[in-house]
């Protein structure tokens, strides 16, 4: 019986070989193309971003109706808000004199400025809604049960941080909507027993929404709260892995 000779490599094969099997490429991506189970697991295990995942998960968890991707999408909104937020920071100065004019500038003269601002705004609303829906998903699937008790608590903290991130960003355009919404919102905080008036004073840096409030909200919005949220998210994701992935029936 004649053994068939392997086909000669075509030009495409040679180009592919040159592009992806060279020293430089292999130094960046150590695994081959993920078309075999071995490489597919290796690519998840060796890539820092994909390594948030395990290499394999229970098959019920890839059913879309089990999670509706709500937690992942909340995180994706956070990433998108970071990107659009950084772009907006290029043009925005948090001073009472400039803030409003800068927003007008962004929406009228900056290329894609209006689009960036719109994206930032709608993504922020989407994140609040997605985080809330994610909480509902986790509750109705009983996913807070042992051993995930504390991760539920971390989730509640992240929910509050999401509200605070959105709330601090609300003031920054320095228009009538922003100013009066924060006035009303901070009055709610100021009504707290014992600590209320002081809390409001610390929050606003004064008795009324003014320059001090603007710089405080800005600093919290662009660095303080995102850092805090990132830390709690790291804990949240880490614990999902440590607790054996998503909850599934016993």
């Amino acid at each position, binding site marked *: 019986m004649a053994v068939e000779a392997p086909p000669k490599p075509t030009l495409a094969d040679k180009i592919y070989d040159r592009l992806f099997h060279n020293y430089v490429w292999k130094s960046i991506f150590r695994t081959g193309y993920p078309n075999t189970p071995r490489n597919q697991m290796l690519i998840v295990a060796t890539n820092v971003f994909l390594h948030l995942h395990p290499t394999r998960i229970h098959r019920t968890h890839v059913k879309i109706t089990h999670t509706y991707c709500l937690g992942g999408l909340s995180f994706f909104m956070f990433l998108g808000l970071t990107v659009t937020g950084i772009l907006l920071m290029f043009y925005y100065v948090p001073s009472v004199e400039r803030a409003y004019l800068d927003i007008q500038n962004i929406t009228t003269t900056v290329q894609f400025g209006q689009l960036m601002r719109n994206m930032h705004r709608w993504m922020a609303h989407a994140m609040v809604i997605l985080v809330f829906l994610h909480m509902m998903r986790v509750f109705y699937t009983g996913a807070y*049960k042992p051993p995930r008790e504390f991760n539920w608590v971390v989730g509640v903290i992240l929910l509050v941080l999401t509200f605070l991130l959105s709330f601090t960003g609300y003031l920054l355009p320095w*228009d009538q909507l922003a100013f009066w919404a924060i006035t009303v919102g901070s009055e*709610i905080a100021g009504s707290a027993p014992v600590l209320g008036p002081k809390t409001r004073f610390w929050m606003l840096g004064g008795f009324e929404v003014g320059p001090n409030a603007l710089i405080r909200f800005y600093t919290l919005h662009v660095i303080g709260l995102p850092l805090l949220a990132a830390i709690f998210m790291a804990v949240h994701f880490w614990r999902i892995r440590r607790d054996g992935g998503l909850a599934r029936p016993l």
Partner: protein
Amino acid sequence: MATAVVARPVARPQPRARDEEVLVWPDLIFIEFISALVFTVGLLILSTFMNAPLLDQANPDVTPNPSKAPWYLLNLQELLLHMNAAMAGIIVPTVWLILLAAFPYFDRDNEGQGAWFATENAWRITIVSGIVAFVGTWLLILWDTGKIAYFLNAWFGLSGGDTLRFLENVRSMQSQLPWPDWSRSITYLPFELRILDGTGRGGPTSFQNLDFPGWLVEQAIPITALVGLPSLLIYTLWRIGWVVSRRDALLALFTGFVVVFGVLTLVGTAFRGQGQELVLPWQLKVSEGIPGQEAH
């Protein structure tokens, strides 16, 4: 179902079922990629056609009517209209968040996790609690805005006259009942206690006077409603045999919360017009605060 467990199982990760597993790449990465793509494209399209709002520059001298907090706080702003400010704005949300965080320490049974509505009566409890919370919240809002009394009078000609006026809404219990003078200033604490003093001016070692009718309508009745109505719901569901575990009780409580939160947010957003009057959404107008523009 055999529930005679000798000792509570120690919280530890479940053992893996390797033959039930799929590869993250491509099975999960694909889903994540597609959902991220759908949201990116969807939000890009939304952003192309809908601009983020930008009103006139902030002006502390010009107050828009109504002034509203961001939409996700309008539920609290709505609560503020019905009770003491410190309670609505701080105490209720704080207590609720602590309760929410404590859920897993109350319901420690690890049965029924990882599946939607896993207990036997979960669907029934959720739907009934949702309906009760929806109707109940609307009724309470309509009652406290005096709309129920108004409709009874306008549609059916039913009027209680002056004797029943104190039932018109919560506040009217304070204003329409013949409270004796002493009940409005009950001295009760020789301390500087600022908890019940909205002004924050307790003064050193001053005696606190309790305005009983005010306390009744601003704190006692709201607390009774906020604690009592959910408890009554859970108790009823327990008595008819639907709620049989802590998980079931939490299902009723959480569903009630979600629906009440939703209704309050909706009312605060779409049904509150000038002077925080309850109006229909299409009658909602915002005055920019320019003198002479206010509707009367």
